[in-house]
């Protein structure tokens, strides 16, 4: 876990005072609405349907227990006692008061957190694999690179007024758990034939109105040139991206208009001026930052434990949870544990102050005091000894955080929709609830296996519906909420965009439609073929026929 030095601390502290001054000037009329809008957005403050909404950055999804407790305290002190984790691993508070935001930021700064560039047309929080450092297949730990990028992008003087928002994600190896192909820039850690560490660089991915999969513009970038190369990409984008139409302003539109080759040429030309320059990251700095992410002091006897097997044999509920909610770890005898923020009742990604405190405590007792947020809107305890799993499960279950549904249909990614968002076309939380009610049979869910369901309340695609195995998009038809369903999307290494199943369905038909869809899958699957593979093999047609035949 990266710990701030004096410079890091000074920057967030000064940023708090800067923002306090901006808020004060706005409130006493010295700063126009328009000007303040741009400034507050760069600090994560939206004004929404109910109230302002503050988005706090969880850089690359890593937190300490102290930080999570601070978030809990903030939710109690300034909000209604809960928070909402997003697909970009940040946390949102839905009810802060505009005048109190500077105080919230000051409280955050005390625990090395901030809301810098969590919205606005600037470089956002860099996200990565939630199994960073514990996955056996990773090429290298992505977190040091995320931190280096965090520093470079924080208050960058040239790139604060980009044509549109800019999101970077890093994959740690061949498995892509960070949806890098649907980011403005995707970086894949790789090793060259000579054993040198570097990145494959993708640009122009993104969803929204014009969904695109990113394109490779450089097959190998030496890792220490990542800042210079990003600077080249951003400069080309800042100079050439469209500004006449905000729906055409993302980098994906520029890459498409020029063609990936011409875009690459521009970047490479710019990079000639930057590579090998002072921007090259020093070996010393790479080591300094990497040292914060060294392996924990693992118990070498962890795998000798025999109690886990006993619990697995004697407790079917625990076993369900173990199979779905815990994941392989590079160290024998350890598992990574997903804390499910997808309960039977409640909004996906929401977490109460009490739950935050509990997770912080579990992290202290069982997982080196650290917690991660995942882009699937869950939390993760990354390093739990197998002998502790049963205790962890009991505690999580007690707090309604152990629903054994990770990776299944009800582990939905859902945006806040109409209830909280002023851009929404339709509600999402009520539909999520209906889906939860319709699919409450654990055995059936487990039989259906891995299914990624993503639901957005409008075309902005905050929940990445295009890349859900099943995507649901809320649309407005003459004032009523309707839902368009897509099949076959994926945000992983085999990224693809979903195809529309057929006509949109009404709010009360969504759950039944999904039921018929999944019955069709159960009928048509071959052996233990996964849902996504079945859809890829058969295409949308057979599903379409059955789903709409009945209606």
């Amino acid at each position, binding site marked *: 876990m990266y710990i701030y030095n004096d410079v890091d601390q*000074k920057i967030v502290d000064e940023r708090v005072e800067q923002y306090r001054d901006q808020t004060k000037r706005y409130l006493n009329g010295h700063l126009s609405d328009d000007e303040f809008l741009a400034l507050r957005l760069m600090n994560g403050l939206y004004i929404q349907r109910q109230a302002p909404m503050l988005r706090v950055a969880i850089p690359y999804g890593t937190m300490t227990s102290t930080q999570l407790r601070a978030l809990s305290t903030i939710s109690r002190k300034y909000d209604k006692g809960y928070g909402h984790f997003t697909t970009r691993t940040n946390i949102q508070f839905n009810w802060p008061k505009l005048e109190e935001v500077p105080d919230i930021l000051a409280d955050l700064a005390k625990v090395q957190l901030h809301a810098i560039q969590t919205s606005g047309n600037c470089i956002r929080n860099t996200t990565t694999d939630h199994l960073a450092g514990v996955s056996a297949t990773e090429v290298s730990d992505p977190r040091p690179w995320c931190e280096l990028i965090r520093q470079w992008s924080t208050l960058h*003087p040239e790139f604060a007024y980009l044509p549109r928002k800019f999101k970077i994600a890093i994959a740690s190896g061949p498995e892509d758990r960070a949806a890098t192909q649907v980011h403005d820039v995707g970086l894949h850690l790789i090793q060259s034939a000579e054993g040198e560490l570097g990145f494959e660089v993708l640009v122009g991915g993104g969803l929204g109105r014009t969904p695109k999969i990113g394109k490779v513009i450089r097959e190998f970038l030496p890792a220490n040139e990542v800042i210079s190369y990003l600077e080249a990409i951003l400069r080309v984008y800042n100079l050439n991206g469209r*500004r006449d139409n905000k729906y055409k302003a993302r980098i994906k539109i520029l890459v498409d208009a020029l063609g990936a080759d011409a875009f690459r040429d521009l970047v490479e030309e710019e990079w000639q001026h930057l590579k090998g*320059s002072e921007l090259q*990251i*020093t070996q010393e700095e790479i080591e300094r930052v990497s040292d914060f992410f060294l392996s924990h002091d693992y118990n070498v006897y962890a795998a000798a434990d025999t109690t886990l097997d006993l619990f697995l044999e004697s407790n079917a509920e625990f076993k369900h949870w173990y199979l779905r909610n815990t994941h392989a770890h590079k160290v024998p005898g350890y598992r990574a544990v997903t804390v499910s923020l997808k309960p039977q009742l409640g909004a996906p990604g929401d977490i109460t102050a009490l739950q935050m405190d509990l997770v912080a405590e579990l992290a202290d007792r069982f997982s080196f005091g650290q917690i991660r947020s995942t882009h699937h809107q869950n939390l993760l305890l990354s390093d739990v000894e197998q002998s502790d799993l049963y205790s962890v499960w009991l505690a999580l279950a007690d707090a309604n955080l152990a629903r054994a549904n990770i990776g299944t249909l009800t582990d939905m990614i859902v945006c806040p929709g109409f209830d909280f968002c002023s851009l929404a076309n339709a509600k999402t939380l009520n539909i999520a609830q209906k889906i939860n009610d319709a699919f409450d049979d654990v055995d059936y869910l487990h039989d259906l296996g891995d299914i990624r369901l993503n639901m957005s309340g409008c075309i902005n695609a905050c929940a990445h519906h295009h890349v859900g195995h099943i995507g649901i998009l809320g649309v407005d038809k003459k004032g009523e909420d309707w839902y368009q369903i897509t099949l076959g999307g994926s945000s992983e290494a085999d990224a693809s965009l979903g195809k529309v199943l057929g006509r949109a369905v009404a709010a009360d038909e969504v759950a039944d439609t999904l039921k018929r869809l999944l019955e069709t899958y159960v009928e048509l699957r071959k052996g233990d073929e996964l849902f996504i593979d079945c859809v890829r093999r058969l295409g949308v047609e057979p599903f379409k026929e059955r789903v709409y035949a009945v209606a």
Partner: protein
Amino acid sequence: MPLLKLKKLVSDDPWVLQEVFSGKTDLSVVVPLAQLLEQELVAQPKERLGVRLSSDESLDDLKPLLKQVSLVEIYFEALRDGRGFSFARVLRREGFEGEIRASGEVSRDRLDYLYRCGFDSVLLQAPINEEQITTAYQEISVHYQADARNEQPIYRQAI
């Protein structure tokens, strides 16, 4: 309109904007890029010629003329239009050593970013006092990035 030059308010600025270039003059004139591109041979001496580039225009069109001017004014068309920041950085990299001036939709909350990107002067639309100027340039006192004023990113700065 207050003019800031190297972080200070100044009142003795020689430059005047000439929307239509009327030929050689003793004044120090800033001429829109389009006007300058139309002139076959610019008789105006370099010391008294400036060019104004709107953020909507192309920096590439300006590059061949850089040797003939001693001031480039970059006009920000909109608050959210950040192209000017990159214009300034590219100009400095191209070796332009004259004055780079910001005008249009620029204000107090962007002063430090402008300075760091290589702007020497800023033509503000709203009044500003000494105290506000000091705060604007000092409120964030450390920087992670290399910029036009300091080639050293944080990991090469001696702190």
